[in-house]
């Protein structure tokens, strides 16, 4: 009836659930707050204590679209993140293939070196990158961001793909070669189908990273080549803070990628934990 181990198990179960909820709420709170604020008036947004019950308004969204061209920024975001992801995959896949299946003496060192470039704060490279962009007339263009996003995501992409390829037994590719497959056939018919999950999650992650990237977008682009990140930033303006509009702009900026991430979360989780469990 009152088995002590059973009671303890139940208690642990409860505790775990409680902690999980707490963590989830903690993570969700800023987003939830953003969501609420986006539908308030500016006055309601700064009210202390905060108003929990209010008549929602779409005024902010309307005004954001009026004041700035949401679609232009959205288009820039889509183009820069999609193109940089595709370009990155095009470069990272062969690189990871070579490192995983044709390991040389220095493969490990190269991988570490690639990763180490991510340890430098981006601002450290700001001046040279800015000057380069300026001299080549790429300031405030999509191309500038595409190049920078691609390069800055490459180390992560190579690493993720490398760890996924590493888990594919060599013999399977060798078997394909023995079966008469050339390099391209080996890739298309064996390697890529086997690594599909990993490829998808790597692509998705980079898409999200590029979409959310703010530092380079803010520094290299403005009104023409700017992404949604620059749109949001433009609402924390010197004229004073407009919390409700800022929230509305943020919501509009993150909504596409959140929806996208929601539908692809299975792939994402699989990719991030790939290799952790066999």
């Amino acid at each position, binding site marked *: 009836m009152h088995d002590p181990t059973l009671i303890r198990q139940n208690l642990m179960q409860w505790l775990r659930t409680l902690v999980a909820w707490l963590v989830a709420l903690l993570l969700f709170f800023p987003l939830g707050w953003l969501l609420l604020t986006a539908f308030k008036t500016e006055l309601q947004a700064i009210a202390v204590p905060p108003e929990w019950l209010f008549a929602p308004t779409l005024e902010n969204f309307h005004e954001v679209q009026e004041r700035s061209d949401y679609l232009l920024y959205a288009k820039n975001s889509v183009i820069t993140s999609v193109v940089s992801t595709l370009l990155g995959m095009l470069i990272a896949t062969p690189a990871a293939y070579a490192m995983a299946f044709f390991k040389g003496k220095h493969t490990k060192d190269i991988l570490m070196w690639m990763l180490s470039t991510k340890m430098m704060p981006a601002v450290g490279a700001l001046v040279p990158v800015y000057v380069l962009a300026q001299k080549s007339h790429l300031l405030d263009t999509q191309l500038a961001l595409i190049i920078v996003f691609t390069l800055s995501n490459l180390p992560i992409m190579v690493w993720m793909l490398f760890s996924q390829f590493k888990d594919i037994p060599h013999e399977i590719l060798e078997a394909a070669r023995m079966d*008469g497959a050339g390099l391209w056939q080996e890739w298309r018919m064996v390697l890529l189908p086997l690594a599909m999950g990993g490829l998808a999650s790597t692509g998705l992650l980079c898409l999200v990273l590029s979409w959310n990237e703010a530092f380079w977008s803010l520094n290299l682009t403005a009104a023409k080549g700017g992404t949604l990140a620059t749109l949001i930033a433009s609402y924390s303006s010197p004229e004073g803070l407009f919390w409700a509009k800022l929230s509305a702009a943020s919501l509009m900026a993150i909504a596409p990628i959140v929806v996208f991430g929601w539908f692809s979360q299975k792939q994402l989780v699989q990719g991030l934990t790939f290799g952790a469990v066999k």
Partner: protein
Amino acid sequence: MAYLQLQGIEKFFGEHHAIKGIDLTIEQGEFMVFVGPSGCGKSTLLRLIAGLERIDHGQLHLQQREITHLASSQRDLAMVFQSYALYPHMSVFENMSFALKLAKVDANTIQQKVQRAADILNLGAYLQRTPRELSGGQRQRVAIGRAIVREPKVFLFDEPLSNLDAALRGQTRVEIAKLHRELGATTIYVTHDQVEAMTLADRVVVLRDGVIEQVGTPLNLYDRPANQFVAQFIGTPPMNLWPSQQLPAGVIQHGPPAAQQGAMGLRAEHVSVTAMGQGQLSGTVELVEALGAETLIYVNSDLGQLLVARQNERSELRPGQPVSVQLDLSRAHWFDAKGLAVTA
């Protein structure tokens, strides 16, 4: 005319000289087994033939055509891997037909060939399954089927049975022998298991440290080992070996002069345990292994060496018992100081 010919094949892995100049000729239809201790280079040699590793020196000819540096995909060889290496995302049918599909064989022919291979290997009921839905033995058969379907010039087997349990290993060994009889295909088979080597091979290549120690028919290797290494490597239990100096004068005088500084070897079946005082050596029983059909008696001889005798009768001997050991010197193998066989 040689079918597959290896001339001075060498391979380096960095500083390590893995294959040190292999010359070997394989005839059409021959079942050749590479055997040797782990690290002897037998798998490397197979991979060099397959084109999965680069040949650093030497030449490889298949039907008089040089293939030394040809890509694996163009050598027309099929390989069965130790891990099977099936394509996990394809069904059994797709696995077996992959090579034909790449070769752009028409669908009807593919269907026929796969069906025939599946019939031979009893895989007919599994063609639509994926590899993960198969048992180890079935996966092994798919791997073999994938090779058969192609009708390659040479079949390469890389320790194909080592992932199977003992019973299945024996059964599959018989199937491979039968398959070779039926197809008559030239086969190179790598194993560290000398029972596989002895039972399957037309000829056996014994390798050590990247060098061929001896090539010959299984019984030839067993009866006439070229050196001490082969003598001890082929046969279970390993051949008894005595340094000549340790042997009593009455024994050593039977050997050739060249063996005076070398060693004498005797198979366990040519050593018998007898009543005290009747044999050339004496010692105490260390262990008795009753295997049913035969009995292995390990004796700690007074020469300070463990030797083994094989007899077909059961034994009442117990460990610790003093015994005498009779050596059938007419069957002795003699080796010189370098370990090479010399005849009496």
